[in-house]
């Protein structure tokens, strides 16, 4: 290599010599490539066979129908009931086994996410920020979260002087309760939901406000002003943004006529429309308010690292701080799941759920919402506390409520009017979009009429130097 084509520094040399995954795969030995292609062909053939079984309806309701793990549970309960056991034992077992299995499932979904979630977030952020991200621990750096967790566990747990010991130790555990409980009513497939509550929406709202308690405890017990400030900010924000969340979920309930999450999904699937198309403002309000609820940018003022270090968990060290960070990630996908269930059609995708397991569709949707969160985090600065509260109380809440009333009227018309659904729903969507845009515009004009909304002035270019006099001349 001649000296002028060679990159100058070690880092740029490393980047220049980096090969893509495809390049490296094609460089494998011939035998491996042949084996890989045979495996691929075998996979495709097996998929076609499965497709045949699905079409002919041989799978429906069988215990080995993995499109819906609910089937296996039903078969299991039937087997226990028909085995001739004492009826009390049988009913206890039919209650206990699905409960424990389901709880294990939820905990492993959340736990599994906590294993790859930090890695995924950091890799994504790194891609947004033109750097590599964690890529040293294990293949593609996948074991990074494990390594981090091990490191955090070894760290000393520091208890600040003057801290209230019980209140100080409880929050890292307490904060997990809503993060796990929130998963209960979410339907993953038609029969696959842990507790398909009739009051699912109310349950979700109730659970989401539990998180404030742990934050309050952590901030108060730490005996630190940063923690106190962070807790004050977080509590103020969470309580304010609960209202837009509730109001937008009310709009969902009004349209679908049910507070049961599985019926909300079924309604969307039957009408062949996602609620985000019908009530876009409610969906966006829900998304924005949830970023405030789970402390993510642009609303992460509760732990604004440039202002109050780590907010309410500044004083926590080791795995205790790790638990707070983990629960944030867990909450992010919980919000993704709620967003998908309420507004993005849940586990359905216009009939595709017959072919692909519904839980995979839901997981994809959760992933997309999560990607949106990471994207926002990588792009936007954060608001100031007063701006954020002002946005909630002055704009989001009044406009949401007004649009909720509109939705109420529409839904009562929808029930009485016997028009084809594409006409009635299309009309609703149009009216709602127009109302949201119009109302936002008018409200902004009323509320912010004194605020300068014009583009900022460009800086002046000059060649004449001077002091105050020159400055006056320059500004004219």
């Amino acid at each position, binding site marked *: 290599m001649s*000296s002028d084509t060679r990159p100058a520094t070690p880092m740029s040399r490393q980047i220049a010599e980096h090969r893509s995954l495809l390049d490296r795969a094609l460089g494998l030995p011939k035998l491996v490539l042949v084996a890989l292609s045979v495996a691929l062909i075998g996979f495709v053939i097996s998929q076609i066979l499965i497709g045949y079984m699905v079409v002919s309806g041989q799978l429906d309701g069988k215990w080995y129908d993995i499109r819906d793990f609910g089937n296996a549970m039903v078969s299991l309960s039937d087997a226990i009931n028909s085995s001739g056991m004492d009826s009390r034992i049988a009913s206890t077992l039919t209650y206990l086994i699905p409960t424990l299995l389901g709880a294990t499932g939820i905990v492993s979904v959340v736990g599994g996410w906590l294993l790859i979630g930090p890695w995924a977030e950091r890799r994504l952020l790194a891609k947004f920020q033109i750097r590599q991200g964690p890529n040293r621990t294990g293949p593609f750096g996948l074991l990074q979260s494990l390594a981090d967790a091990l490191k955090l566990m070894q760290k000393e747990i520091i208890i600040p002087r003057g801290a209230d010991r019980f209140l100080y130790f409880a929050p890292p555990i307490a904060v997990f309760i809503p993060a796990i409980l929130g998963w209960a009513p979410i339907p993953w497939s038609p029969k696959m939901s842990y507790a398909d509550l009739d009051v699912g929406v109310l349950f979700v709202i109730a659970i989401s406000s539990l998180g404030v308690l742990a934050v309050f405890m952590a901030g108060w017990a730490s005996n630190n002003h940063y923690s106190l400030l962070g807790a004050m900010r977080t509590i103020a924000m969470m309580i304010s943004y609960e209202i837009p969340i509730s109001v937008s979920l009310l709009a969902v309930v009004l349209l679908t006529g049910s507070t049961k999450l599985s019926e909300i999904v079924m309604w969307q699937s039957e009408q062949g429309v996602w609620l985000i198309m019908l009530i876009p403002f409610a969906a966006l309000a829900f998304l924005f308010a949830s970023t405030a609820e789970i402390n993510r940018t642009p609303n992460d003022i509760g732990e604004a690292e440039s202002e109050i270090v780590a907010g309410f968990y500044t004083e926590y060290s080791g795995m205790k701080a790790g638990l707070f960070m983990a629960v944030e990630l867990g909450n992010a996908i919980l919000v993704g799941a709620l967003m998908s269930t309420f507004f993005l059609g849940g586990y359905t995708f216009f009939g595709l759920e017959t072919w692909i397991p519904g839980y995979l569709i839901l997981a994809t949707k959760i992933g997309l919402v999560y990607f949106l969160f990471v994207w926002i985090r990588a792009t936007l600065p954060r608001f100031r506390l007063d701006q954020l509260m002002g946005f909630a109380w002055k704009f989001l809440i009044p406009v949401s409520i007004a649009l909720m009333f509109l939705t109420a009227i529409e839904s009562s018309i929808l029930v009485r009017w016997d028009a084809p659904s594409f006409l009635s729903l299309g009309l609703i969507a149009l009216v709602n979009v127009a109302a949201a845009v119009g109302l936002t515009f008018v409200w902004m004009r009323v509320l912010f009429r004194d605020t300068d909304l014009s583009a900022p002035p460009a800086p002046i270019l000059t060649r004449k130097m001077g002091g105050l006099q020159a400055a006056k001349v320059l500004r004219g």
Partner: protein
Amino acid sequence: MTTSTEPYVLNIGPQHPSTHGVFRLRVVMDGEKIKDLDMIVGYLHRSMEKLAEERTFTQNIPFTDRADYLAAMTGNLGLAIAVERLAGVEVPERAEYLRVIFSELQRIASHAMANGTLISDAGAWQTPLLYMFREREKILDLFEMTCGARLTTNYMRIGGVAFDPPVEFWPALQELVDELPDRIDEYHELLVSNEVFLARTRGVGVISPEDAVNASLTGPVLRGSGIPWDLRKADPYSVYDRMDFDVVVGKSGDVYDRFMVRMSELYQSVKIIKQAISQIPSGAHKTDIPLALRPDEGEIYSRIESPRGEIGFFLVSDGGPFPYRFHLRAPSLINLSLLNELGRDAALSDAIVTLGSLDIVVGEIDR
């Protein structure tokens, strides 16, 4: 019903993510509002000015690297020019152009860092900072090619520069200069019309022109307040009088204006570098001076425009090889002096953003 809250003290720093070094703010807060604010400096004091009295003029150049460590080139240049004026040393033409090229590259790197950290203070999770690091990295690569160091360059010498850049420097510089305007446009798109950023910076930390002059602010902070004052034009040194460039002046003196002044100065610096590349003559890069330069008895105050403002060197010579007195006028320290007024009655978040927009380097404040 009124509720009364008790003011409480918050110590921001010496270790804190947004104090940009070991620097401490003692803040008395009432809820989210700042009632009183004390700046406590001195954690990075290394007694530079006293140590300088026991070293020759050339040996003092590395100290200027470590004063303003984000703009080592301009620090070096300030001292070199001061000693040259004191001792009457001639500088070859080529060296003057190299000095201009390197100090403008340093300005770009430093402004990129300043604006990037300002946005990080406003809460963007490091993306703009790392975007700006991409250019800074290339500039530091150029420094490394030329003088072996990236941060503490120690490149300027009394009577010229230490080394002539290697052959591969020039194509790399040309490539960088060609792509820089596009890159800066990218930041404009990402930031200048970003509503959250505008909401956080416009009308925040406003310094009136009168206050700016009275507090003897310099650099982008002064220009952001609307005063057209840039030593490259007002008191030209090196070959800046042969360059064709504009001075950027803000209108309202808020954080956003200081940000925009730095942003637009990037374009001007690129313009200057382009002209310097086309005009640079061949020849020597350094005049030979005695190892222990002994200027005549006398004193001098010499100033140049560093990325942070007027960096001035006051040197007193008693005719010996060491300076009798060595004083550094640190722009960061003087620009910081207004933070007390700006922070009072502001929200904590605003004070942090204002501090970020003043672009301090603690190495220079404490020396």
